[in-house]
């Protein structure tokens, strides 16, 4: 049986995390508005969180974060997991995103989300993830998404 050849990962670049936060999230206006924070990143996997903020609420009588914020969080963590799976820096674009809302979020609390790339092909990246508040075993939402690779010539140019 031939041994599987080890491939390269963009995330193995020691500057990846810093450059991602500074050059990627740091440059995305909407991510700043959401207060998006990186919790962790490793090969094929990423964890991000959004702290609670009043302007992210969906229904003031309940004080619960809007479902649309979870969509943004899932899109962001899915994109991040995609970068964690790519061999080198390239532009990506969300093809589709499906979120299942499993139970209501708790009022006045931020949301964390973890995503992983479970299949990388030459043109498409397949992602699944969950969002949670108390712990990953108690999800409030789950998600599947696909991202297109090399979606633009205009690479963000932060990690070579």
């Amino acid at each position: 049986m031939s041994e599987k050849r080890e491939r390269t990962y963009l995330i193995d670049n020691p500057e990846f995390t810093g450059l991602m936060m500074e050059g990627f999230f740091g440059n995305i206006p909407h991510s700043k508005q959401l207060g998006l924070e990186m919790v962790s990143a490793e090969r094929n996997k990423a964890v991000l969180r959004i702290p609670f903020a009043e302007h992210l609420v969906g229904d003031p009588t309940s004080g619960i974060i809007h479902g649309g914020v979870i969509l943004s969080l899932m899109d962001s963590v899915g994109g991040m997991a995609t970068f964690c799976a790519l061999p080198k820096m390239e532009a990506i674009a969300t093809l589709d995103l499906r979120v299942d809302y499993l139970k209501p979020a708790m009022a006045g609390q931020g949301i964390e989300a973890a995503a992983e790339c479970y299949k990388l092909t030459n043109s498409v990246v397949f992602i699944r993830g969950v969002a949670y508040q108390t712990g990953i075993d108690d999800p409030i939402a789950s998600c599947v998404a696909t991202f297109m690779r090399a979606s633009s010539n205009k690479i963000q140019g932060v990690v070579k």
Partner: protein
Amino acid sequence: MQDKNDFFRAVRESKDFDKAIEMIPYANFLGVRFSERKDGSLLFRMPFDEKNVGNTALPALHGGVIAGFMENAAVISLMWAMDSTSTPKIIDFNVDYTLSGRAQETYARCDIVKLGRRIANVQVTAYQDDPNKAIAVARSHFKLVRD
């Protein structure tokens, strides 16, 4: 306090649609606006705002913003159709991105495919210049909260 069931009736009569948006902080934050068209359907719009950008190189709107805008449109359409201020509970949201959202005003129209007793199915189309050129299409299920 105003009777819940009268809220949308009052908005409809006064045409003060922004009042409905003010009830939803995140919709207000995204800059969502809507109006009633001659045929009675709703047209949603989201003027371009720098803070909604997701890619500064292109530049393009954040995918989450487009989806959040569409979700808001679906929720408001249902509340409008039911004359209710009880927010439908979202069950799932499935969005396909067909074009990148450019740095300009975005529109959305909703089609309530099914308004059942407990569940509703809504399809949303988001576009920019050309109503026939969608930048994203979505379908979503909601659990209805009857007043």
